[in-house]
Structures are given as structure tokens and as C-alpha cells.
């Protein structure tokens, strides 16, 4: 991901940034709005997480937004087929910064039981920068809450001046894969993914 150099940091004096970012991070980690976006059976567990028994609202993430423009976190809940992958990347591009990705379930992490199939992307990390990998088939609601808490910890530890979207040159849209004769072209985004790494 293209990131500008530190000379391009927008003017946030260090004496202010320190105390401010603690409050700022506390506020945004407790109001992570996921996108209403279900791909497969993991989406059912995601819905269960939002329901009364697990109640994701306790962690400030109850507002499943129907539009990517209003979302903060994209939960890739299920199998990403090759037919769906370009649309997934396009939806990710439409989320405003700062944005985060949780790869939920074995399929979104690595293709899962369908990894050897002709139509499944072997992990959404080929096309999107994933923040949290959540294994399981499917993960239980408690596991999704755990992933959310881990994401909150990650956000709490971020420094504002280090974030790409506060640089002068902000990261642009990710390229969309295209439908080829047998699969997607390219098979992965070389900026994000190295095979066998």
C-alpha cells in the first residue's frame, strides 16, 4: 500500500497528539460499525452475534450499516467465491478510512474446505489487507466477539501519526480483479500477498 513519507504528515503537534489520540482511539474503538455483508454460513453466526444472547452492542458494534459509506469494519463472513471477489474489493474501496477487515471463518482466512475448488478464493488476504484472522467453521459468536475485542486492542494501540490516512499521500483504491477464462486475473494482489510466504 502506497504510503507517503513522514514529511507529509498533516500538522498534528506531538504535545497535542499524545493525549488526544488516547481519547480519539477510545472513541473510535468503541463505535466500530460493521457493514451488513454476509457471504455464506458464517453470516448466520454474525447475525447471531448481533442478536440478544451475544449482543455485539455491548462492544459498540451493533449498528450494521447497509451502506459501505457508513461502515468502519468489514466482516468477511464466509466463502469468497471468485465471482464475488471483485465486488468484495469494490465494497471495501467504498468504505471511508479508517477501515478494518475481519476475515471470519476458515474460508475467508484460507479457502477452508473449498480451497481446492475451481471457484473459491483461497483467502481474502489475496485482495484485501486483513486485520484480524478468525478461524473456525463457523466461529461461534463468542469467537467473533473475541475478534472484535482484538481489533479494538489493535485500534487502541495505533498512533495517529502512523496511520496511512493521515499521511499527505493517502492510500488509493485497491485494484479490482477481473474475470479470466479460468479464474481471477490477477490471482492475487502482489502488493498485499506473496504466495507461500
Amino acid at each position, binding site marked *: 500500500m502506497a504510503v507517503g513519507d513522514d514529511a507529509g504528515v498533516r500538522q498534528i503537534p506531538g504535545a497535542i497528539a499524545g493525549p488526544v489520540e488516547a481519547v480519539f482511539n477510545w472513541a473510535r474503538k468503541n463505535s466500530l460499525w460493521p457493514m451488513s455483508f454476509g457471504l455464506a454460513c458464517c453470516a448466520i453466526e454474525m447475525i447471531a452475534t448481533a442478536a440478544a444472547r451475544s449482543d455485539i452492542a455491548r462492544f459498540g458494534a451493533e449498528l450494521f450499516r447497509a451502506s459501505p459509506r457508513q461502515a468502519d469494519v468489514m466482516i468477511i463472513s464466509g466463502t469468497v467465491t471468485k465471482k464475488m471477489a471483485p465486488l468484495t474489493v469494490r465494497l471495501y474501496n467504498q468504505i471511508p478510512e479508517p477501515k478494518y477487515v475481519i476475515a471470519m471463518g476458515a474460508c475467508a482466512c*484460507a*479457502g477452508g474446505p473449498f*480451497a*481446492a475448488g*475451481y471457484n473459491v478464493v*483461497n483467502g481474502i488476504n489475496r485482495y484485501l489487507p486483513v486485520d484480524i484472522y478468525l478461524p473456525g467453521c463457523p466461529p461461534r459468536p463468542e469467537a467473533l466477539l473475541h475478534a472484535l475485542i482484538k481489533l479494538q486492542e489493535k485500534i487502541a494501540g495505533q498512533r495517529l501519526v502512523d496511520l496511512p490516512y493521515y499521511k499527505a499521500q493517502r492510500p488509493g483504491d485497491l485494484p479490482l480483479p477481473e474475470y479470466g*477464462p479460468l479464474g481471477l486475473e490477477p*490471482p*492475487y494482489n502482489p502488493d498485499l500477498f506473496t*504466495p507461500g510466504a
Partner: protein
Amino acid sequence: MNGEVRQVTAQDLLAEVGRLQAAGFDYLSLVTAVDFIAEDQIELVYCFYSIASRKGPVTLKLRLPRTAPRAPSLLPLFRSADLQEREIYDLFGVEFEGRPGIKRLLLWDTFQGHPLRKDFQPDDDDRPVIMDERRGQ
């Protein structure tokens, strides 16, 4: 009649289905295909039920050559054949005659090949290890 399995040919499929319809079999439960690569044939399988008289299934099986397989479409008789015939065209490459233009159902239109055929070679983008082992590489 329950559980009966009949082998038919492409020529007398429509007549056979017509006889079943006349006998009260009003529900086409499934259409599917099997790739018998050793015999160089693709088999279509049709299952019929009678909702009214609670009979069935009656299974019709139809063998076609693997190269350029063509079968008569059941769409004029059963609307439920539509999506399943498109799926078989998509995944096995069987052409259906006597129905308006057939399109791929699941894969995109520019996809090459029919992935449920046994000799289909998938995309070679760094396959996981499990796939290489299965191929004996």
C-alpha cells in the same frame, strides 16, 4: 412404480416423460448429471414424483457421449427444469435442445470449460498443497 429406475435414450426421453405426466407424475424433483469418464459418457438423471397420488420417485437415466452431448430440454413440460438444465450446461457442458437460449447459471459468461467434468484442469494460481498431493505431483 415407486423407486423405479429406467434407462432411456435421447430420442424417446420426451415421449417417456409425456407418459409419466399422463400417469400423474406432476413434479420434476431433480435433474442432475454424472460424468462417467471411463466409459466416455455423461449420464443425465431425472427424478419424478406425483404430488397428487404420493407416488415416486421414478428415475429416468439418459446416457450421452462425452463429446458434444446434446439432450432434449424438459423446459416445455416442466418449468422446474430451467435452472437445473442451465446448471448442467454450466458445469458439465451438456447442450439442451428445444428451449430458448441457454446461458451459464453460476460461473461468469467468459469462463472456459466445465468444472465438474473429471478431466477439468483448474486454474493454476498457486494451488494449496492438498491439490498438488491429489494430483500426485
